């Protein structure tokens, strides 16, 4: 594998994480639990789709046959998407949506902080830009996890259950393979063990304030990074790809 191929894989993973979570949150447009939260979640969706645009745009330039960000976003097969399983999980109730967001934000923020120092200029500048917004996202999702966990009996038990359901998908955020190792050697990307230390600390602090606990069962799911998705992914892509598949080459 060349360094450029490894970088393509890496940028595509970052881009797909943003794209798929952005799409999930966009489903909430007009369906948020309260108006303010409807607006907040779709604002976050917009940021994520903005990140996906830059990342997939960049990924497209790393192939021999140039692909546009639209080609990559809308015209791949399910097994060619490499987002983590966590982000394609359905919105569920508000506790599920916020827990999924929190587990991701707590990972994305330290990752972007470290990617700002990447020796790859393209990646570093996207990280610098995306980090500013991601800080808001993490603050927002952290505060909600605490409010729900430390709220009523009902909100507490619901958000605790959300953590039980989603925690098994969180480990995949730290998936690494030969692409990562190759790029880590050249200081293009950070080692995820350093990101994991910060993630562990953030979730520990927030869960202790929220009064919720990690599941004892350490069941882990993975596969998304290698293109093996959960059953939810097909439905998500049917929505995401509908316009481009129905009207090929359409543009806004």
């Amino acid at each position: 594998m060349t360094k450029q191929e490894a970088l393509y894989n890496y940028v595509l993973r970052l881009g797909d994480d943003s794209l798929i979570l952005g799409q999930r949150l966009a489903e909430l447009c007009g369906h948020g639990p309260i108006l303010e939260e409807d607006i907040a979640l779709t604002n976050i969706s917009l940021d994520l789709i903005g990140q996906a645009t830059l990342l997939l745009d960049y990924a497209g330039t790393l192939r021999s046959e140039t692909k546009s960000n639209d080609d990559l976003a809308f015209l791949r097969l399910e097994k060619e998407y490499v987002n983590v399983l966590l982000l394609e999980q359905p919105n569920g109730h508000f506790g599920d949506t916020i827990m999924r967001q929190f587990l991701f934000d707590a990972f994305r923020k330290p990752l972007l902080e470290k990617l700002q120092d990447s020796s790859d200029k393209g990646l570093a500048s996207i990280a610098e830009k995306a980090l500013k917004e991601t800080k808001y996202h993490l603050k927002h999702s952290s505060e909600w996890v605490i409010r729900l966990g430390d709220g009523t009996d009902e909100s507490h038990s619901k958000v605790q259950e959300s953590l039980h359901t989603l925690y098994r998908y969180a480990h995949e955020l730290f998936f690494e393979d030969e692409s990562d190792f190759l790029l880590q050697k050249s200081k293009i990307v950070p080692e995820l063990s350093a990101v994991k230390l910060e993630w562990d600390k953030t979730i520990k602090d927030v869960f202790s304030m929220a009064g919720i606990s990690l599941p004892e069962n350490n069941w882990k799911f993975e596969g998304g990074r290698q293109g093996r998705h959960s059953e939810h992914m097909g439905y998500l892509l049917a929505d995401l790809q509908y316009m481009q598949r129905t009207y090929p080459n359409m543009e806004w």
Partner: protein
Amino acid sequence: MNHIWSLLEEVFDPEVPVLTVVDLGIIRSVEEKNKMIHVTITPTYIGCPAMQTIEEDIKTKFEENGILNFKISTSISPAWTTDWMSEKGKKKLKDYGIAPPQNEPDKSLLFADPVVVPCPRCESENTRMVSHFGSTACKAHYQCTQCKEPFDYFKCFK
């Protein structure tokens, strides 16, 4: 170059139509190379849907004024911050009813007291944050407890 800058002073942000693209601080550079004008712009928020419109509006403004040999490109680094907004721009925002960005505490602090944002209508500092996310990515939603006016606050973005 002055001519170009004064034309840019006539291009307004489609979502906050009192601010010009110069007030916003999103014009990174204007250069002339081989009789070609190069304008570099930078997005405010990464997914800001106004960016395409802004680029189109600059194009239209140039063409209307007989400038046909130009190129507009986007650069994301260094990343835009609200510090780049001009003082004139901040005043225009306030007059328009949007509270301009204030210095805000560190975002890593959970449940920090929201920043005191004076009401753009009655100047009262007795206001409350309704939601951190407002009508566009760059704004939060506030209400004045004194005069009851709901208003937008242009968030400090750093």
